[in-house]
């Protein structure tokens, strides 16, 4: 599924929630993925003047949401440091890294791609 967004993040979240449920994520982890994708898509609105694209797909093992936009991230450790409580920035990608099972981030002059993975059957669960 591909979706182009410019400012309607509510629609982005609704699409992620619908696909996460269909893929079989639990409600809590579906909401985690919704938060992660919304935070990344919010960066498109904050840091670029163009639209972004959302792709969602899943197989038996995991669901993946990929956001691509024209922005460039230069900090290789972005989102890896815990912001101080009350910090006035830096929470977005920190949250993304906290709630997702795996985050792949590539960025260069052509744009930024963030791929967020959620395992459908986490270790320790039945089945």
């Amino acid at each position, binding site marked *: 599924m591909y979706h182009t967004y410019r400012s309607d993040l*509510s629609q982005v979240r609704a699409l992620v929630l619908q696909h996460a449920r269909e893929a079989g994520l639990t409600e*809590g982890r579906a909401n985690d993925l919704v938060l992660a994708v919304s935070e990344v898509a*919010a960066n498109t609105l*904050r840091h670029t003047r163009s639209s972004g694209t959302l792709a969602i797909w899943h197989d038996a093992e995991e669901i993946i949401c990929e956001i691509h936009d024209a922005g460039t991230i230069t900090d290789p450790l972005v989102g890896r440091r815990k912001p101080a409580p009350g910090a006035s920035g830096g*929470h977005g990608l920190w949250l993304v890294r906290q*709630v997702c099972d795996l985050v792949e981030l590539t960025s260069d002059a052509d744009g930024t791609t963030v791929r967020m993975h959620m395992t459908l059957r986490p270790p320790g669960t039945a089945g």
Partner: protein
Amino acid sequence: MDLLTTSVATVESGSEPYTLVKLVGEADVTNSDALREVLDAEVAKQPRTLIIDLSGLRFMDSSALHVILRANRAMDREGGVVALASPRDPVAKMLRLTAADQLIPVFPSVSEAIAG
């Protein structure tokens, strides 16, 4: 219908008056400026207690969190207190992950927030 609606009440009942701001819908980067204006206006009135009722909030992102943290700092400077009431599970989780719940007390209900 707006993605986020806010309603404000000044409640005089009991020993201490307080300001109650109720958020309904989804709070994100697209409406955080509007949320900031609402909270700034209430903080400027220097209430002793500002309670933000989150029970109707289906979603909150880091932009909205920053607006709330900013209001908390401003209230703190004036000797006032901010409390958050009845967040749904996803909102409660993001307050926990960002450690915002260590700066701003979170209560299961508005009545418990009033009791402090």
